[in-house]
């Protein structure tokens, strides 16, 4: 069947209004904002409400996350999220370890995009300690960030197809395809850093691993393959009637709600807000690049998918721009810092934010001063996933249970980062 796909600019031309859709189970409630503080006892004494625990080990929760759903029939009346199952006390650990020991630990926070975690952390430390980063390292960081964004969004795309139901994209076929293509990026990272996943390639003041010979050609071939195949994978989903029924008009996060909750990244851009830290508050080498920001207006699951797919293509374009023109020069501002930062004073406070695939990932660090050695006094991770998840009590009420899984998937939460 022919379905007009809305352009990536998100004009969202709908053939059927969302509230009159034939397969829609709850026609009127989809854009209503739920009340997270709803008193269940006062809701409707006659209604026979059922309590359903989604999680903590449900495969669709992308980790360990529990949703307590109050159901009236199949419709969600109230959703109470519980997180913390993966809480590892990273912020307390930061007060015990030295600055250089912290970088490998931050790989484990957002385990789908470890590069961004390292970068936000070393950026905060660099501005706290007043360390300069050479131009070559800034370019390499930008390149790694964009490659990581491709890998992260690819994994999300495959997982989202699984969330919507096994039949979409041929069972787990699309998931495995996306996994395979993500592996191409991980291979490139492995060649650079020696690790597939927990890279530890960023240092305070530069990068640890220089580009090996012939690496650029491998990056080129990897992103060529991904770009070519992405067109095919997109066509599996985005023109599929079932996919459109399950995502169009489902889980609308409007712009006001997103900003009020502090949601950034693809969810905010899908709601029509033109906001991207890469362009609006440039870090690394983004001030020398032109980042094209894609926005959509619908704010639903379909718009979020389109934004993320557009961001893969934009990242591929940026990687192509950068890969052959990485400036020569030193990769670190000094010899690798291995011991305590004895020569630098860590008095003061610093904040650094990067645009991770999930939004604004910020690190706020308070320096320990002289008397506490070289550990931060207090370090706070502003995790974009936690802010994104906090939309669930507002968005889920009015939807059916199967939509809850689609909405949860489209939010792209990484529980390691939510719980820390």
């Amino acid at each position: 069947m022919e379905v007009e796909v809305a352009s990536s600019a998100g004009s969202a031309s709908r053939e059927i209004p969302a509230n009159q859709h034939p397969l829609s189970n709850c026609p009127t409630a989809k854009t209503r904002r739920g009340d997270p503080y709803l008193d269940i006892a006062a809701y409707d004494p006659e209604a026979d409400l059922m309590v359903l625990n989604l999680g903590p080990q449900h495969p669709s929760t992308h980790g360990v996350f529990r949703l307590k759903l109050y159901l009236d029939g199949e419709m969600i009346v109230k959703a109470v999220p519980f997180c913390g199952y993966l809480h590892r006390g990273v912020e307390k650990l930061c007060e015990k370890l030295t600055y250089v020991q912290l970088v490998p630990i931050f790989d484990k926070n957002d385990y789908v995009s470890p590069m961004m975690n390292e970068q936000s952390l070393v950026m905060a430390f660099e501005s706290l300690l007043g360390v300069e980063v050479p131009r070559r390292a800034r370019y390499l960081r930008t390149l790694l960030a964009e490659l990581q964004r491709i890998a992260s969004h690819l994994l999300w795309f495959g997982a989202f197809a699984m969330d919507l139901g096994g039949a979409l994209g041929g069972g787990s076929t699309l998931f495995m395809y996306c996994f395979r293509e993500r592996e191409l990026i991980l291979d490139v990272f492995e060649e650079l850093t020696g690790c597939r996943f927990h890279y530890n390639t960023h240092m305070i003041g530069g990068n640890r691993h220089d580009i090996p010979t012939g690496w650029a050609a491998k990056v080129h071939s990897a992103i060529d393959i991904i770009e070519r195949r992405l067109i095919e994978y997109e066509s599996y989903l985005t023109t599929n009637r079932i996919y459109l029924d399950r995502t169009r008009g489902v889980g609308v996060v409007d712009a006001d709600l997103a900003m009020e909750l502090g949601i950034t990244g693809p969810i905010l851009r899908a709601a029509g807000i033109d906001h991207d830290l890469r362009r609006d508050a440039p870090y690394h080498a983004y001030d020398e690049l032109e980042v094209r920001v894609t926005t959509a207006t619908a704010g639903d699951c379909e718009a979020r998918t389109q934004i993320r797919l557009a961001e893969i293509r934009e990242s591929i374009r940026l990687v192509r721009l950068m890969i052959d023109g990485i400036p020569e020069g030193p990769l670190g501002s000094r010899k690798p810092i291995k011991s305590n930062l004895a020569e630098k004073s860590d008095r003061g406070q610093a904040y650094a934010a990067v645009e991770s695939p999930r939004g604004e990932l910020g690190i706020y660090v308070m320096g320990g001063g002289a008397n506490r050695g070289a550990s931060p006094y207090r370090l706070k991770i502003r995790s974009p996933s936690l802010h994104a998840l906090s939309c669930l009590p507002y968005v889920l009420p009015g939807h059916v249970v199967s939509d809850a899984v689609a909405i949860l998937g489209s939010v792209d939460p990484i529980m390691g980062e939510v719980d820390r």
Partner: protein
Amino acid sequence: MSVAGLTMAADVMELLTRRFSANSEPDGPPLVAPEHHLKLVRTLRDEFGYRIFGFVIASHHPATTTDAENLGHIRVVYGLRTVGVDTRLASWQLEVGVGNSVPSMVQLFAGADWQEREQYDLVGIRFEGHPDLRRLMLPEDWKGYPLRKDYAIDTEVAPWR
């Protein structure tokens, strides 16, 4: 500026110092009296366009004296962000003694709900007027506040079941 990497706009600095008589701090953002907090949030949101919720960060500063009564004080740093091109952060902090509370900003920014719950959970600062102040990360029956400076990192804790 007192927070590296967070340069505030000149008009916000003027607003903080003139209208809300904030004290500049050597380390950290300007210090605002807790009674001005909500008015400041509303002014920044409605008049200055700081519409994206940023962060809430509480930190414990133990007393320097050996007075057993004095448990030190807690500082809460807030951040709000403008939308779009040349986005800026506005940041300020409040200070209260341990055991006192600060006004909750949930009524103005719904995103403060989970953030304040997290800080209550880990640092043990109460937010006055929060509609649902429960622990966010740790179990309900957890004893103590792990991010307090007097909570030793090597305390043995029985496995939670």
